[in-house]
């Protein structure tokens, strides 16, 4: 019966201490969350760490959930903020960029017929400025609309659309450059 309960209702129940609701909600959302974490970071290890951060802080964050937004939008916002925190931390400690930046080396060690595509993906994502990459990561798997992505990132729907078109421009430029080589 609970399987039919909406995420929002589950989140509210969890916020008021319903353990089962929280467990169910997490179970429903975990995979999507992990995939988003991967798109945001570009490496499995980073994605797992980020997912762990989010899991650790979700219970306390959830208390502030007021069901004004869709749960998915709210959750993605938590995820994006956690990703920012990780990135900021990385900056603070003046360490090398991880994730998308570090991919190239890791990938070279890998084999397989998909590697051409994988290298291209890495190149494409790395070449995007932070805000565009983040926007693309959110919108790519088509689970959320531009409007919702705007809510997640705290910008207008128009800005999201503009960023997406900028990202496309970027990719086309990249393609042209490759063709020219």
């Amino acid at each position, binding site marked *: 019966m609970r399987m039919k309960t909406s995420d929002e209702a589950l989140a509210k129940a969890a916020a008021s*201490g319903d*353990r089962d609701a*929280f*467990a169910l909600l*997490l*179970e429903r959302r*975990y*995979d999507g969350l992990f*995939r988003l974490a*991967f*798109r945001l970071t570009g490496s*499995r290890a980073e*994605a*797992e*760490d980020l*997912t*762990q*951060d989010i*899991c*650790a*802080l*979700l*219970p*306390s*964050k959830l*208390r*502030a959930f007021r069901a004004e937004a869709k749960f998915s939008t709210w959750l993605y916002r938590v995820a994006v*903020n*956690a990703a920012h*925190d990780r990135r*900021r*931390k990385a*900056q*603070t*400690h*003046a*360490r*090398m*960029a991880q994730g998308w930046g570090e991919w190239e080396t890791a990938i070279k060690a890998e084999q397989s017929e*998909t590697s051409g*595509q*994988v290298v*291209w*993906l890495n190149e*494409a994502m790395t070449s995007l400025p932070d805000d565009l990459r983040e926007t*693309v990561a959110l919108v*790519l*798997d*088509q689970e959320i609309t531009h409007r919702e992505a705007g809510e997640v990132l*705290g*910008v*207008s729907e*128009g*800005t999201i659309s*503009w960023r*997406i078109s900028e*990202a*496309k421009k970027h*990719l086309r430029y990249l*393609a042209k450059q490759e063709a020219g080589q």
Partner: protein
Amino acid sequence: MSDTLDKLNAAMKAATPEPDQAAKAKNMRLAMENFDLLQGLAPDARPIAENRPVVGRLKAGVSTMIQSLTTRGGLAATTALVAFGLIVISPQGRSLFTPPDVVLPSPAEPQGTRLRDDTFDKVSEVDGNAATHVEIPAAEPVMNAPVILQELADTAVSSAPTPAIGQSLSKHRSNLAGGIAPMPARRLEYETSTPQSNTEAFSNEAPNHLNVTIDDPVSTFSIDVDTASYGVVRSSLSNGILPPTDAVRVEEMVNYFPYDYAAPDAGGAPFRPTVSVMQTPWNADTQLVHIALQGQMPAIDDRPPLNLVFLIDTSGSMQNADKLPLLKQSFRLMLGQLRPQDQVAIVTYAGSAGLALEPTSAGDRATIIAALEQLEAGGSTAGQQGLQQAYSVAEKMAEDGEVSRVILATDGDFNVGLSDPDALKTFIADKRDSGTYLSVLGFGRGNLDDATLQALAQNGNGQAAYIDTLTEAQKALVDQLSGALFPIANDVKIQVEFNPATIAEYRLIGYETRALAREDFNNDKVDAGEIGAGHAVTAIYEVTPTGSQAVLNNPLRYQTEAAVDDTSSELGFLRLRYKKPGEATSALIEMPILPEMSPVSIDVQFSAAIAGFGQLLRGSDYLGEWSWGDAIAMASTARGEDEFGYRAEAISLMRLAKSLSAD
């Protein structure tokens, strides 16, 4: 064609791995444990110290950690467990502190937290530490202890209806703080490291977005003379971390600096607006419309007597060297500026509110200083009671024509007694209308409830300043004392209507927390900020001229262009409303904004550099390639005389930010 994006989508789908089931189980278990722990903090639950299962889990966590030290995954897996678990047991830690029932973290935890922040290459080095600390808590790691308590306190506070726990935790914190005297710089490392690692709460809104003039030609906001945000930014950067983005309020950074804008004519309005238009430093195709308000400087010699009530937070958390002791020094500096006609009283709040000094003539310095020196930190914080008493003292002191003001000094602990923030704001707003103002001075970091402080000062027609050094006290309480204490105009609102014929898009930089509805401008009942004697206030718009290639929005297809008078070259029209102190009806100042306004002074340039700096710190989308280096160069050329070295300090902060944000 969107096939580039489709291609990316396909590649991404192919590359995205399925979540590892073991990691998933582990992470979900972690989430559930934190969930349970949070429930354990609820008032009806058993005290956490008796919560056996958690202890068991913790021990398991520690041993797992030690066993799996060689793998990064193992470390990451256990750290969060330890983070919550060690708070519970830690028998070694307990003996270090006075109250035996206190739940204390073992030093191992912060090490654990750090593990998660650090790179692989540090793992081996940290391994040793972690293991050592679990076994033998040395004296040194005590430095790290407050972080954890804060983390717990944060959980408790954010879980809303648990005042009892908030109170007891803050008491623990104070005991800890007492033990370690100066605030350890290392502590700040954690401020941004885990998303809930301290109790600081910052008040901010998402940065203003770009407005299309045709759709929304009118921008309305209240002025803001607070400077607290700059202080917080400085303290973060000086401690080697970038400030939390929400701590950055660009207008407060800009308004921190004294500017030499054109002063108003005697006998006219109490302040004078000066508008300049300049090239945007970060975008060749846009311009900045710079609006400067300069308040008049009334003759200091015949100023009316002041009635000041210092409302001082003496809760335990104020014990640090950068809090109560700094506060005492600051007030001593300020006393030197007061005259025998002025009156001073001191009210403290800590557990119960008390009158520490009856209203006393400022000439009687010895009595005042003796009372000040007797203040000691201890107890929990009951903000509201103290506030009520301070106001009643202030009302008794005030005679006709006298300015009276409550000056609240706190590190932001309002977690007891503030059951209803709105009621508190209403209370302060009522008092403001009856003639007693409120200024707020924030001290110390880690506990700073910036959001509440700002809300209080805004409602009390006062300034919020953040005091982190004696130099800052000198600026806020001595150099700019008259500005801070003598309002010359209340409820100052700015409204700019942009001309769609000349301006396609505009964006107000900063003032997000001060936005007003368009109709509020003419509504005298709506509160806004005040300008003090000699204050300068700056507001900057970035505008995109029509036809510029920097226009970001396409024209609408189904919307006919609004009829505009093409002959007008005006960029817009500026309206200002203000009330003279004691008056209920506002006066209006109006002027057109022309393409050629006042020449761009060095002050205007410096304020634009600071606006750019603030936006860099917030991670703004609108700065393009403009970098820290550009901000430094611009601020350096616009340094001017810089009598007190404020601008030089800002440039050093920019350099720090540049280094900290470099990869």
